[in-house]
């Protein structure tokens, strides 16, 4: 019998673990990712410090390579031309991929919430700025405010300091009280937060204010200052950049395009990480925001299941349950306070692609209504940014996902000449 062809989408911790497990168990595996190197968000390669290798990343990537799985980087899945093919864009040309088993490990992205000034140049996503810095964007000497919510803020602040930025402050909207249960679990395993670099030592010197949040950014051409509040008092700090994110939301668009059922905002999976569509598995952040350890164990289970090694070892199941519990504490600790959902003024832009303001959206009844009548979410980002904001702000459930997942040239829908069947790349 011909070994099963397994295609893994996303080369973060979940994808790496899945590909490794499937390949070790006899499958022919190819893993695609839109970045130039494997690692995903947490282990994003740093072009400025190629030798600063994180041991966990190094181990995962070494395991992946010795398993014999193939890495196909620089490829972004943009469409699902038929139920069993994926269309990938690779530096301007297009490739078609088929599979016997598909593992989706597409990770998460940051949530942005609109407030006056959030669209000014100089305002970045927290993880987004971190990624830029790893790509060579200089922050040395820059005064940076880090704001929003989630464990990512501290990791980002520490990272930016390493690169010579001066962190004005880190403001976390969750109160100390709300974060307590989470802090306790961090104390039990501090590595969880700061995996990815040795910046633990820099963290101590960073001001961290809980129960505080940004209410506006000021500046004419670019950001000059940020106004912060703790609900009782309001103050303004000068800065060059604001790195701001309100925790993470799952990348479920590809799963949805493939017809996988969602449960709430997440991809629904069974005990083997299989989605509602037979032969399609999902692991990591799309199934729940629970950090790198959850991503790895889910990935391994998915990889084993795709290789027909079932049931999964109880040791993995136990670890997955433990990490899921960590994820629930995380979600609870960093839940949004009502105040941060009311920061936008009437004129604040919510959808940047189509310039839709808060007041235009206020009168709409749901996401479809808003899309149709204001064109919110109809621009090139397809609602990836404003959709998670309106979900938080108005409680709108995002409805259908439309192809393509990312803008592609019109000819890409026609072109069959560059088709190739993978994962025979090995």
């Amino acid at each position, binding site marked *: 019998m011909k070994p099963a062809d397994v295609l893994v989408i996303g080369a973060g911790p979940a994808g790496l673990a899945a590909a490794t497990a499937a390949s070790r168990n006899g499958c022919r595996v190819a893993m695609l990712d839109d970045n130039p190197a494997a690692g995903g968000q947490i282990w994003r390669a740093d072009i400025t410090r190629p030798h600063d290798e994180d041991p966990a990343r190094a181990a995962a990537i070494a395991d992946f390579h010795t398993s014999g799985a193939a890495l196909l980087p620089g490829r972004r899945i943009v469409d699902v031309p038929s139920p069993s093919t994926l269309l990938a864009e690779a530096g301007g040309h297009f490739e078609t991929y088929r599979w016997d088993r598909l593992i989706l490990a597409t990770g998460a992205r940051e949530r942005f919430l609109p407030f006056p000034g959030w669209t000014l140049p100089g305002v970045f996503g927290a993880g987004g700025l971190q990624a830029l810095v790893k790509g060579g964007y200089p922050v040395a000497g820059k005064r940076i405010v880090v704001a929003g919510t989630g464990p990512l803020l501290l990791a980002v602040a520490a990272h930016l300091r390493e690169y010579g930025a001066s962190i004005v402050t880190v403001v976390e909207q969750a109160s100390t009280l709300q974060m307590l249960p989470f802090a306790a679990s961090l104390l039990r395993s501090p590595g969880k937060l700061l995996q990815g670099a040795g910046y633990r030592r820099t963290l101590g010197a960073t001001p961290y204010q809980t129960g505080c949040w940004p209410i506006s950014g000021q500046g004419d051409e670019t950001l000059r200052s940020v106004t912060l509040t703790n609900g009782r008092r309001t103050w303004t700090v000068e800065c060059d950049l604001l790195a701001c994110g309100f925790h993470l939301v799952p990348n479920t668009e590809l799963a949805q395009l493939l017809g996988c059922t969602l449960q709430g905002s997440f991809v629904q999976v069974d005990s083997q990480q299989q989605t509602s569509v037979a032969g399609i598995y999902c692991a990591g952040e799309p199934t729940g925001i629970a950090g790198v350890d959850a991503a790895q164990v889910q990935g391994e289970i998915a990889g084993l299941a795709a290789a027909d090694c079932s049931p999964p070892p109880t040791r993995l199941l136990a670890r997955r349950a433990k990490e899921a519990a960590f994820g629930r504490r995380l979600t609870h600790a960093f839940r949004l306070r009502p105040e941060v959902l009311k920061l936008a003024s009437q004129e604040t832009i919510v959808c940047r692609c189509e310039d839709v303001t808060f007041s235009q959206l206020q009168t709409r*009844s749901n996401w479809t209504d808003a899309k149709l*009548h204001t064109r919110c979410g109809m621009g090139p980002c397809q609602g990836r940014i404003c959709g998670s904001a309106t979900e938080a702000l108005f409680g709108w459930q995002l409805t259908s996902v439309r192809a393509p997942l990312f803008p592609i040239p*019109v000819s890409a829908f026609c072109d069959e000449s560059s088709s190739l069947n993978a994962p025979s790349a090995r």
Partner: protein
Amino acid sequence: MPDFDLVIVGAGIVGCACALEAARAGLRVVIVERGVVGGGTTAAGMGHVVVMDDSPAQLALTAYSRSLWRTMAPELPGGVEYESRGTLWIAADDEEMAEVFSKQTTYAQAGIASQVLDPRELAEAEPYLRSGLAGALLVPDDGVLYPPVAAEYFLCEARRLGVVFLSDHEVVRCGKGRIQFANGTSIESERILLASGASIDLLPSLPIQKRKGHLLITDRYPGVVSHQLVELGYLKSAHKLTADSVAFNIQPRLTGQLLIGSSRQYGDESREINHAILRSMLERAIEYMPCLKGLSGIRVWTGHRAATADKLPLIGPTADPTLFLAMGFEGLGITNAPGAAVLAIDALLGRASIIDAAPYLPSRIQQEAVHA
């Protein structure tokens, strides 16, 4: 006494236009919709307001409706994005050029302005079209608009005149002066106007078939296309009754985005994208305008037209004296909404219409088909 003189089922552009017309006639109206206003086929359409001369009746209704759009134009809110850029009917060869001339004659007889462009003039008007085309007919008074906002505009005007709107209300039964909702409640009314677009669940015997279409929208490229472009071969495509077909059709939006169409398919009621059809549709477009290849496409979607055998809508009374129709607009419901609304309310009130309403009467098809 019932609370309403008229219940309208369906808040697409047709139902909304009817609501406004009925309110203007002094009727007490409730309009009910299972989803959101303009969320049906109206959300999928291209918004080309176009005079078509497929048949004398089609010419009469599109010309009348277009004149109503042009009268309304100054009052339309900015969000409707109404623009009168003019249609270019593009002829690829001499055979199609002969059609250009006969089309011009037909239009002239109907008082519709048009102008024949030779290849050089066509290239000047639309420099990105491929070379070697035979010419075109410019119909300067045709327009384009953004349909969901136009539908909502009609609805808002109607509500200002007292019309009641119920969204998220699915009707499960209608006829004999009564409509019933999925939640069990019902409304009685002397008259019911069914404007449910391509969905005929409420009256399965209606001679309407779903005809699926695909569209793609690009990122913003202001200046690439200046007119509403349609290949003359489109007529051949739109008229085919059976086979799947595609035709080159581009509508520029105010933002510089281009809507690229179009396809026609029977027998596929799903909303899923058919990549084979999509491919041939886009290949056709690229054939006419090679630069489209490199433009960034941001979204593809589908919609269902409500097609009748003679390609004319069903407007007017049925065998059930309480039940009236305003459906079956195929690919012209955006264009025809204002004219159809006048005809429908005329029929309801027993008034004479400004154009001959006979060709659109549901009774023309098959008597028994429109029995409730």
